[in-house]
């Protein structure tokens, strides 16, 4: 995976984060327009997402993604340089020969085989997934400790050596990975593994080059020495076992029993190396060990890590939930059905200062008026609400002249009677009624009570007092009327 790929992932993550803060409708419109354009260009599937990113966040040298990519390249170079320095140093130390003590093959084997196998085992432990952690007690802690020692983690320390802009980019990408740990955990994990293996490969290439350089450009004497009681035959078995991978390809790199027997030395002995030239074939064995147990596994792991990193980036790029939502927006038509403009606020008249009209007393005589097809018995309706209907009229139906006649008739009715306007409680109070009540007030003059009586129809067709829900609009209408002698007459319903 190239640093550019990771950089584009940073761009994608930042864009998705920014989009999460924007209104969904706006995103749908923007992405659908882009989606139609890209579909017209013949793009489908994953390429769709990449092309979309190109449009909404074109790659720019000053962009966060490009800076992150540059920073990553810089860090990789630093890490590789660090590996080269350490590898050369280690090889120079292990292959050091000043004419006194020969290069101790046991040390070379311990460092370039033993230690490498241990480190590889550690790497393998780090690669074990969640299921292993569940079944192997203590594995999680071991992995935590091992990961602290992983060179990949040194990136955090090394990034301080970068220029300020790249340092910021790394910090930003790190924070992004922290915020969306689950989404980018795999990318982070394989980035670290790749960094570790890059260090390892650099280390081993440099070590090998240094060792070969010393062999070519200086005269080295090899021998083997250990405090342990080590029989040459045991070392022979060990070296033969280690040489198995290359024994057929490079038989000269397999130390013979004579060589092993001839090159054992003791530092305190008079002749540390009896025949330095005869010890030279050891270098082939050492070089083969460095390649097979040091360089090749690291190179293989680097290749594997890069493959997994590429896969992780790809999956994060196209299969994370926000991208699925994005593809939904890109690929599906925007369907809008709601209103263009917001509902205007409801303006209700303030009725708090309105004077309450006197409530009709029980048995009060009234001039009854059935409004707009009131279908119930008028006398029974009045009785129900404690009124006595002295006379009956109808209005709000038929010709408008009938309304005028009803008003005139009410004007001439006895002044000690109130006017009871019987209305269907299940219908809303219309402005037509309010117009009529205004005209009636004008005809009656001030002071005479007009009672608005909404009534419901019972199952047997008889009038009944309506419930509070049906009364609500009528109460509001009465309160909002400018007539101070208009009263809503609705006795409490019997329970």
């Amino acid at each position, binding site marked *: 995976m190239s640093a550019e790929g990771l950089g584009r992932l940073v761009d994608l993550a930042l864009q998705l984060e920014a989009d999460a803060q924007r209104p969904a409708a706006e995103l749908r419109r923007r992405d*659908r327009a882009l989606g139609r354009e890209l579909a017209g260009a013949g793009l489908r599937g994953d390429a769709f997402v990449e092309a979309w990113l190109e449009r909404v966040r074109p790659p720019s040298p000053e962009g966060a993604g490009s800076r992150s990519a540059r920073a990553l390249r810089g860090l990789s170079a630093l890490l590789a340089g660090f590996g080269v320095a350490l590898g050369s140093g280690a090889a120079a130390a292990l292959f050091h020969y000043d004419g006194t003590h020969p290069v101790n093959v046991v040390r070379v084997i311990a460092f370039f085989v033993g230690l490498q196998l241990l480190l590889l085992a550690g790497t393998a432990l780090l690669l074990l997934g969640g299921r292993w952690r569940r079944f192997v007690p203590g594995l999680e802690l071991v992995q935590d400790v091992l990961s602290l020692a992983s060179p990949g983690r040194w990136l955090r320390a090394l990034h301080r050596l970068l220029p300020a802009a790249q340092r910021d980019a790394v910090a930003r990408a790190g924070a992004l990975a922290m915020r969306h740990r689950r989404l980018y955990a795999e990318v982070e994990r394989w980035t670290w593994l790749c960094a570790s293996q890059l260090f390892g490969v650099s280390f081993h290439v440099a070590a090998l080059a240094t060792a070969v350089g010393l062999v070519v450009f200086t005269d080295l004497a090899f021998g083997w020495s250990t405090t342990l009681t080590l029989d040459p035959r045991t070392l022979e078995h060990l070296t033969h076992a280690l040489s198995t991978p290359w024994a057929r390809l490079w038989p000269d790199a397999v130390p013979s029993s004579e060589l092993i027997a001839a090159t054992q030395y003791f530092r305190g002995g008079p002749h540390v190396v009896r025949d330095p030239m005869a010890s030279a074939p050891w270098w082939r064995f050492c070089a083969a060990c460095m390649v097979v147990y040091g360089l090749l596994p690291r190179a293989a792991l680097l290749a594997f890590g890069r493959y997994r990193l590429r896969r992780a980036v790809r999956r994060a790029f196209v299969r994370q939930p926000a991208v699925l939502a994005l593809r939904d927006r890109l690929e*599906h038509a925007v369907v809008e059905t709601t209103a263009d403009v917001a509902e205007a606020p409801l303006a209700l008249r303030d009725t708090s200062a309105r004077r309450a009209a006197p409530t009709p007393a029980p048995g009060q005589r009234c001039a009854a008026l059935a409004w707009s097809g009131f279908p119930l018995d008028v006398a029974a309706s009045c009785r129900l609400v404690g009124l006595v209907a002295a006379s009956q009229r109808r209005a709000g139906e038929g010709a408008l002249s009938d309304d005028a006649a009803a008003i005139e008739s009410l004007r001439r009715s006895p002044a000690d009677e109130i006017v009871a306007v019987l209305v269907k409680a*299940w219908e809303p109070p219309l402005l037509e009624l309010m117009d009529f009540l205004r005209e009636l007030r004008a005809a009656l003059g001030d002071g005479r009570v007009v009672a608005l009586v909404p009534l419901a129809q019972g199952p047997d067709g008889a009038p009944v007092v309506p419930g509070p829900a049906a009364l609500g*609009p009528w109460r509001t209408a009465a309160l909002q009327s400018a007539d101070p002698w208009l009263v809503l007459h609705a006795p409490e319903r019997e329970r």
Partner: protein
Amino acid sequence: MSETTPTFAVVGHPNKGKSSIVATLAQDDSVRIAPEPGTTRVCRRYPMRLDGRVQYVLVDTPGFQRARRALAWMRERETRADLHRAVVESFVAAHRGTGRFEDECELLTPVLEGAGILYVVDGSLPYGPEYEPEMEILRWTGEPSMALINPIGEADHIESWRSALSQYFKIVRVFDALTAPFEKRLELLQGFGALREEWRAPLEQAVRALSQERLQVRERVARRIAELLVDELTLSVSKRLPEGVDAREQEAALEREYHEALRERERKARAQVEEDYGHHEIERREESFRLLDQDLFSVEHWVLWGLRRRQLVATGAAGGALVGGALDAAVGGASIFLGTLFGAAAGGAAALWSSFRLEKARIQGLPLGGRELRCGPTRNRNFPWVVLGRALHHNARLAGRTHADRGALALEPSVGPGWADRIDRERRAALERCFTRLRDGDTDPALVQDLAELLAPIVAQADVAPGIG
């Protein structure tokens, strides 16, 4: 908008469900539905757009307030039937801006501009002759019309309405705006095509788009639920313990924090699902969600939403058998499958034992020294099923809810344990495998997609959800 864009003016008496019909058909819960008459004073347009192109327009209008007087004015000027429309036009021209017949002018304007008429009445209230003037005025406009009987209450006066309306309108349909399922809404929209031949094709296209959009909504919801499950199952909170601090004092606080974080994720997911269904106003009514606000961690709740005991034992046993089987394989079958047997028994027992509680906070050492108190992620096998059951129920309630419905979401009487029985066995097992991957710390970002694909058919089949059966 082109001249042939189908436009429908929803007209009628005040408070007869015009706005409810508009809210349901336009899937817009911002429509004001109030018991007071006259809350709609100006026309409000609801264009249906497909990728920005208007397919049809619904117009919510004020109700007739002075229809009898308006008709009287028109009759005074009536000469012949062919001039009826001109009289209506002159009525609007004469009264616009005068303050008289304000509502009539407003509602007649879109009709005179060529909108089809959708005349709405309440079929639960008795018919009355006071409706006749407004129906007559609408007839005079000469525009194509349809009557919709919207039964708002329980009483049934539909037949008397049908017989009265059929004298004024060629098409009379019953449509309950409050409870109409999605398919009925589409059917009605398609029916509007009968008003004018040239409207049929755009309406059919609109209906197809709405059906497709509905499928997309279900997929979106499946993804939201998958994300919620992943979030809930991977959530953990931790706190570093300073030297000398009593961990027990910190435990309760951290557990509370963990539970609150789980609840918050559920609340957020619900809000997103409501948004997907176009219900933007529900959030304010969250306190009414009595069922869905029951505590996520109450034992009664887990009995209601989680798996049955035998299902729990089965899922636990399957996991245990897998581990035991691996041991059997490791010894080359010399254990005569005792590993599988014991593994299954232990897994089943563990699943049952831990099924009704979340784990407590635990202390763990840190690699560089020190201690940390950590809560989550939960390994409880029942928990994802509890979360899933609640989410599916929430989805089912929303899927069946119209945008005219302003009531609280209520618990269906049929809610009970065992809802997951209605998910087929293979899918349940596949879901359990996904939950196991999550419990094992699988960080594959594609896991949400895998889960969403499993959930999509369940979400689409809303009657699988608990409480909808």
